[in-house]
């Protein structure tokens, strides 16, 4: 039983760290919770069995890293758009080109 939680907890913690690095950082919350709950379960089982819960340190470490990254990103990143210079240039070029094309089209009013 403990092994299942260790594997599950590790996988969730790694997934959370990976997601926290990507722009999908707010989705990392789900694996963070899963990893945290798994960690608590390992702690509980270890106490019951009176064995040392070594793996829990790594799971919690990953959870802390991903949680801090997620919180930092959530607070710092504003929803601002990237550079639009190229788009604006294409927009202008298209407009000029369109006016030339429209001059040749018969328009019924």
């Amino acid at each position: 039983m403990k092994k299942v939680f260790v594997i599950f907890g590790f996988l969730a913690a790694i997934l959370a760290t990976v997601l926290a690095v990507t722009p999908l950082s707010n989705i990392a919350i789900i694996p963070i919770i899963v990893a945290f709950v798994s960690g608590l379960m390992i702690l509980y089982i270890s106490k019951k069995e009176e064995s040392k819960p070594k793996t829990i340190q790594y799971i919690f470490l990953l959870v802390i890293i991903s949680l801090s990254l997620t919180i930092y990103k959530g607070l710092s990143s504003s929803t601002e758009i990237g550079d639009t210079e190229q788009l604006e240039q294409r927009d202008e070029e298209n407009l000029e080109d369109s006016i030339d094309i429209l001059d040749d089209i018969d328009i019924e009013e």
Partner: protein
Amino acid sequence: MLTVIYPFLKPILMKHFILLFTVVLSTVNHAQNKTINAGEKLVFTASYNMSGILTDIAQLKMETSQVKTSRSTLMRLKCTATTYKKWDNFFKIRDLYESYVSPKTLKPYLYKRDISEGGYYKFMQYKYNHKAKLVNSLKRKKNKKGETWDEKNTFNIGTNTRDIVTTLYHIRNLDIHKASPGDQQEFNVLFDNKENTIVVKYLKKETISTALGKKECYKLALSVKGSDVLKGSNSNLLWLTADNNKVPVYAKFKIAVGSGELRIVSAEGLKH
């Protein structure tokens, strides 16, 4: 002989005549533009839904402006999509869709689609010839070396065939207040050199809260006939304000890779 079979033929002929009359009437009667004004600017946020958590992906803008050519004055309907900064390193989108229409009837004359999505570039242009019911299309693509090549085509279209941008604005110009819940209408939309049929169904009136305040809206369901681009029935929804401006304030869509939504951020230069 004819007098014998005429009583049997009469109901069939009448039925065909009514159908023909309706078709002719609908094609002749080009709806006047009562909704769209030049100088209108609508800004939206597109979000992707993953396991119930929404992530803002891109900003969408719908703008209209007046364009003067040497022979006439037209209205330019422009839609742009730009990914937010944090997404640019992963998947940069800079899309431009535009259509040049008659400001009186919203009849399209020229359509352009200039898209750049994560290194993929495509340009499409439709030049309408309404008299001959033809469209001259131009497709331009870029290969990995950056070289471009053109592909030209000419094909027939129906009287009421429009591009995707014009269709969006045309839906806003419909007399939805005259429709009753459950009514639906089909639109022929030209996309990627193919004519698709979009079915728009009016579901009901609904009041939703938006960035523009609490608004009473027309709730419409959209689907594409014979295609599975949009998944599920009644899961692709559009809310238009139930006033004369019919501003699209909220949309929900479901595609193969998940679902998402569009929320209005601001609206400027409305006609009413």
